[in-house]
């Protein structure tokens, strides 16, 4: 088989598992547009958190190749139905990823720390009442609590722990998630950010943001510590300029 991405007709399904949708396609398009960089990046371990139907991890494995290319894949989901569907989708495309039913990366934090070269996440980002977060079944695929940020904010520090020094993180966000604030939070952990794909549908405006550890950012952080400023002006300018649609700054940076 020589598909570049997973084929919808081969993607397995289950009534309790989120099917590939605009957000999934946006993330796969982002990975495709960054494919040459990803190949030159020579990742050893790639990971998806919340693999759902398996469309994204399967597409990544088709894009970057399998063990012959020296790449190993791990995917997790909190929904046991989703992990089984992911396995079926991988098998239908003749590719392999290791699979674990777990909450984000629980059980992997110690031994996988600093080893993940590429992490992809299409998180549950829909703003919902907080008590809908963490329910069983398909709700876990979308329920994101206040501003849709509850699960995203849990994932980011875990990603920071698991990513290698050269690690890249791709995350899907919604405008309501306040993506520039997410970028600012990640900047404070030493990451630079770039929007790889921006897409507006009738219902929502999606961004796929790529994060990587950045030496200049770390210098900025030292400056901030030394001068007791919050955020250097040029950092704010670059962040704001990336999100032209935003009214994100109404509460201002802390």
């Amino acid at each position, binding site marked *: 088989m020589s598909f570049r991405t997973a084929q919808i007709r081969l993607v397995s399904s289950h009534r309790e598992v989120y099917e590939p949708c605009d957000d999934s396609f946006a993330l796969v398009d982002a990975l495709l547009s960054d494919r040459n960089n990803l190949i030159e990046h020579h990742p*050893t371990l790639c990971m998806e958190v919340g693999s759902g139907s398996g469309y994204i991890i399967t597409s990544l494995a088709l894009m970057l190749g399998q*063990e012959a290319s020296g790449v190993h894949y791990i995917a997790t989901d909190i929904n046991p139905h989703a992990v089984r569907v992911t396995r079926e989708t991988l098998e239908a495309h003749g590719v392999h990823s290791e699979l674990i*039913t777990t909450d984000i990366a629980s059980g992997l934090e110690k031994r996988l720390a600093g*080893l993940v070269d590429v992490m992809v996440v299409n998180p549950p980002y829909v703003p919902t009442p907080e008590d809908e977060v963490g329910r069983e079944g398909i709700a876990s695929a979308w329920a994101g609590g206040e501003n849709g940020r509850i699960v995203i904010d849990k994932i980011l520090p875990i990603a920071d722990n698991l990513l290698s020094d050269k690690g890249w993180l791709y995350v899907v966000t919604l405008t309501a998630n306040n993506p520039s604030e997410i970028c600012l939070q990640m900047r404070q952990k030493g990451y630079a950010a770039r929007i790889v794909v921006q897409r507006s549908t009738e219902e929502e405006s999606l961004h796929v943001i790529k994060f990587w550890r950045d030496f200049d950012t770390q210098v900025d952080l030292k400056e901030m510590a030394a001068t007791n400023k919050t955020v250097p002006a040029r950092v704010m300018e670059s962040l704001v300029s990336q999100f032209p649609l935003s009214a994100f700054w109404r509460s201002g940076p802390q």
Partner: protein
Amino acid sequence: MRLLTHNMLSSNIKGVANGFPFRIDVEKVVEKKVDFNAGFLRNIFPKVEWKAFVDAARTMGYPELPEEADSSLLDSDEFLTKFHHGLLELHLEEGALICPETGRRFPVNKGIPNMLLHEDEV
């Protein structure tokens, strides 16, 4: 579940200090051919806890790995072949991972370990 994954998992139960390595309760092992890539093996070797890996492979019915290994072995094709087989080609298809500290069983069904915790374990 490959033994590489076993080597990356530790018990996530609240209060467990030493949750690595999981003991393996084997019901069914399957072998799946995987393309060989020496570069991958050399990259991953320093990350593998060797004793846990050797013990797990023995439990899975593969006693061919040396008790101790250092990076000088990575020049040996014979060693790399065995390392490759043990790390990537042996799958725990059915069975359980057992927390070394509490004895809690995490089931493995159709090759997928289930690490979800009960409320009182989080």
